[in-house]
């Protein structure tokens, strides 16, 4: 066990914690939580090489495929950045204030309703999977088993579509940046954890980059003239790859959980 103690010291983690992880690692492997995947580049010692170059598809575009999760950060609460106040129309400002003051008590996801775009990607600890195929990029959100389809076959956004929770998305490449336009939203989701609101006039432009194998970055521009007098932009949001693992099923059974929602 000298080895274990050494590792624990280097990583400044109590040995008790290490022992606990050791005890658990066995059963976890049976869940596809930890399995070596052939597409993962490795360092000489066999660990995933997260700083390896980003993979590319046969047509030379960056491949964004992988399982990602948002790094914890204040942008989870405020897309515009900590302390930044986005100018809003009075009704939107009042609603946002109420959401902040009630400490997020009315979050849609507490009642099994979807996170908004891009908020669904910002739930740290609950990852999403990107599957990039010719003609379409699919985003599978682990939370609530939700998905988004981003079409790259050259189609246009639909005219006067039936509003939906995640809207309608088309994507195209600008150099190494994947640019996604989304519109046709239903009202009611929150743009971020703090609760920036939106209306059915929302039009989002997300810009994704994969600087290396283990990192994904995104900025989103928010254009919603019914809620915000001027379009605004998020800070850069950073995602980390979860290598050698798979998504897990996650269906919401909140009807049973709701009785526990005490609070004020």
């Amino acid at each position: 066990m000298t080895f274990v103690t050494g590792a624990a010291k280097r990583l400044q983690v109590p040995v008790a914690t290490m022992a606990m992880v050791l005890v658990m690692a066995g059963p976890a492997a049976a869940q596809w939580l930890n399995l070596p995947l052939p597409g993962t580049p490795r360092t000489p010692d066999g660990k995933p090489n997260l700083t390896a170059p980003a993979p590319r598809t046969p047509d030379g575009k960056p491949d964004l495929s992988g399982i990602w999760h948002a790094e914890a950060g204040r942008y989870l609460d405020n897309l515009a950045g900590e302390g930044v106040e986005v100018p809003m129309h009075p009704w939107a400002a009042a609603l946002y204030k109420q959401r902040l003051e009630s400490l997020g008590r009315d979050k849609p996801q507490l009642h099994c309703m979807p996170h908004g775009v891009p908020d669904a990607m910002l739930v740290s600890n609950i990852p999403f999977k990107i599957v990039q195929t010719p003609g379409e990029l699919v985003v599978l959100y682990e939370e609530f088993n939700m998905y988004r389809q981003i079409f790259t076959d050259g189609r246009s956004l639909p005219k006067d579509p039936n509003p939906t929770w995640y809207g309608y998305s088309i994507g195209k490449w600008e150099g190494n940046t994947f640019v996604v336009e989304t519109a046709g939203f239903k009202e009611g989701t929150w743009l971020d954890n703090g609760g920036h609101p939106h209306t059915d006039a929302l039009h989002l432009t997300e810009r994704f980059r994969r600087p290396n194998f283990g990192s994904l970055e995104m900025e989103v521009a928010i254009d919603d003239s019914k809620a915000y007098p001027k379009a605004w932009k998020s800070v850069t949001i950073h995602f980390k790859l979860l290598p050698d693992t798979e998504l897990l099923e996650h269906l919401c059974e909140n009807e049973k959980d709701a009785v526990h929602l005490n609070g004020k």
Partner: protein
Amino acid sequence: MRTRLAIIIVGLGLLLSAGPALAHHAFAAEYDAKKPVKLTGTVTKLEWLNPHTWFYIDVKDDSGKVTNWGFEMGSPNILLRAGWTRNSMKPGDVVTVEGSRAKDGSNNANVKEVTLASTGQQLFGGSSQGQ
């Protein structure tokens, strides 16, 4: 030994990635980080549910009076990634729970850590504290 070390490192990675607070939950609306609780009792019921796992324990005070407490943890998947299995804790097990009490003063709390009395094993509760 090498395999074991590799497992430890991977396991540690999972553990650390489970560390940051959850954006999911309205922790601050329901629990008070300034009201820490540490209770020992016998598990009476487990509910592996999304969005949150719950379990209940019977706690006996000095006079012998038994009170049932409810504890909220992260989602089942967050717990799996933090090293739990569905067999980690069963009704009848004696556990010590550390967490933050519900703001409404009910006998509910949000879990930081669970320690199993039989093995001394400590498990991260997937707490959403910090949001």
